[in-house]
């Protein structure tokens, strides 16, 4: 056994490791990932150490053996939307390309803890999307049919079944009666920070450099091909560059000399004080622009709608929270007595058809992964898997339809019903 394999065996998290450390006052734990100094050259530089960026790096190493990789992060690891979302995982989209990448992603979540040797607390507790108007009934029944053709297990359920699965819900209205729901039993939640930390640890284990507090200030090209990046910690050369920076995608693309069909807006969420377990499913209600689940700590986690205007400040407008809570209180009367603990915003990158962009760009060697808009967390492993293939081989069956040029050709992947508000 070589030394690196031996080291990683000793570093493995397990019940045995916990017991071993218990006998020596927990002095044997090592850092999950190191503080790396930038080298002068890498095969691939990934910009953005959020879930998508780290997953891209991880699958570059795991699936393609490319480990001379740096992940550059302006702030801190997982400090953007990875740490700001409502952790919902589902794959009940309408269009075939979406179903393919989101279901790939959901299925990777099932085994992620074992794969990364890091507990991401994936909880397939079931996700229901409520139909509260006749229009939504038709929309979700259509999605259920599409999903069964795509091999994604979802079903249309009755209001009575909704009430059975989520007894705290008032299904009678009067303003927003529950008329049924689209139910995905294998959807659920996961611990969002752990997803970023688990990928970071696995990347560092493969010898990749995760460099925080390192902002990319420019993209260097030669004859239309990328040669490296300038950063606040000096110039770094690379053969390929993957931009995976969500809300700041347009800002970074501008540095590389092209535009994206993206607008950045604020999306907000809030959590209540912790209460006893009262709800063991995820409920999304698109008509009232709200979605709800209960965290393992007992907090009710509530997500709202986006603001209508461009914004990079990571805080949104108060009236959106008011609207979200006002509407949810009718469907969940129990919420009326709860105090809210925290509220925050994240900057989401929204495309015209509400589908992401995973694409080669006008600059050779530069690839972009953005446009996940209001629903990126669920897609982290699938996005990383597909992006790694795109970067390594130049094409991937999962990303083919998600090219940035689809708008020019009118080949939209319209998910505004599935993704317009809720996530």
């Amino acid at each position: 056994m070589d030394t690196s394999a031996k080291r990683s065996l000793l570093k493995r998290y397990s019940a045995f490791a916990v017991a071993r450390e218990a006998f020596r006052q927990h002095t044997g734990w090592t850092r999950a990932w190191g503080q790396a100094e930038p080298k002068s050259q890498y095969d691939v530089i990934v910009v953005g150490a959020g879930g998508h960026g780290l997953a891209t790096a991880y699958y570059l190493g795991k699936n393609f053996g490319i480990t001379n990789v740096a992940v550059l992060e302006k702030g801190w690891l997982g400090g953007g939307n990875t740490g700001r979302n409502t952790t919902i995982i589902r794959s009940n989209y309408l269009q075939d390309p979406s179903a393919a990448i989101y279901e790939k992603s959901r299925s990777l979540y099932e085994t992620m803890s074992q794969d990364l040797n890091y507990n991401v607390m994936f909880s397939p507790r079931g996700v229901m999307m409520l139909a509260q108007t006749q229009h939504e009934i038709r929309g979700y029944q259509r999605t259920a049919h599409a999903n069964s053709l795509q091999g994604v297990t979802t079903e249309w359920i009755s209001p009575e079944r909704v009430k059975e699965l989520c007894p705290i819900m008032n299904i009678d209205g009067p303003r927003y009666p529950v008329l049924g729901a689209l139910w995905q039993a294998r959807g659920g939640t996961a611990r969002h920070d752990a997803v970023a930390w688990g990928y970071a640890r696995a990347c560092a284990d493969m010898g990749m450099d995760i460099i925080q507090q390192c902002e990319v200030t420019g993209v260097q090209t030669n004859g239309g091909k990328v040669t490296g990046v300038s950063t606040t910690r000096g110039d770094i050369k690379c053969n390929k560059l993957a931009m995976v920076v969500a809300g700041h995608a347009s800002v970074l693309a501008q540095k590389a000399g092209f535009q994206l069909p993206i607008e950045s807006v604020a999306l907000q969420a809030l959590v209540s004080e912790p209460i006893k377990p009262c709800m063991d499913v995820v409920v999304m209600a698109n008509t009232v622009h709200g979605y709800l689940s209960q965290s393992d700590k007992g907090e009710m986690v509530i997500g709202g709608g986006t603001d209508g205007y461009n914004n990079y400040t990571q805080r949104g407008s108060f009236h959106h929270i008011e609207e979200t809570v006002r509407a949810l209180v009718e469907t969940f009367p129990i919420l009326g007595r709860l105090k809210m603990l925290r509220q925050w915003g994240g900057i989401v990158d929204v495309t015209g058809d509400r589908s992401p962009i995973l694409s080669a760009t006008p600059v050779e060697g530069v690839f972009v992964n953005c446009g996940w808009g209001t629903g990126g967390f669920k897609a982290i492993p699938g996005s990383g898997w597909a992006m790694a293939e795109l970067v390594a081989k130049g094409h991937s069956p999962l990303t083919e339809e998600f090219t940035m040029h689809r708008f020019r050709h009118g080949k939209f992947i319209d998910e505004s019903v599935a993704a317009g508000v809720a996530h």
Partner: protein
Amino acid sequence: MLILNCPYCGRDVDETDLHAGGEAHLKRFGPGSSDDEFEHYLFMRENPKGVHFERWRHVYGCGKWFLAARNTATLQVYGTYSAQTTEPPQHILDAIKEAQA
């Protein structure tokens, strides 16, 4: 709460009375234009982190469209002006310059 001055009503208006309309001063392209021009007009956006010229509609008021200059990184509003302009007027540009000085 974002507050913009409607240049038609002359009143300060809360954002709940307004509807955001996206990037302003887009040049329209119609039949006969190239794919590139049409794609840029319809889909490509500046989306700057900084000064943004944008369209707003005073939807629960006079109902008219107007334009605003606003900073997307600070939410500072530099001013609002008539929608019947193809580029930002000088007094708006001056206000931006002054604020950034």
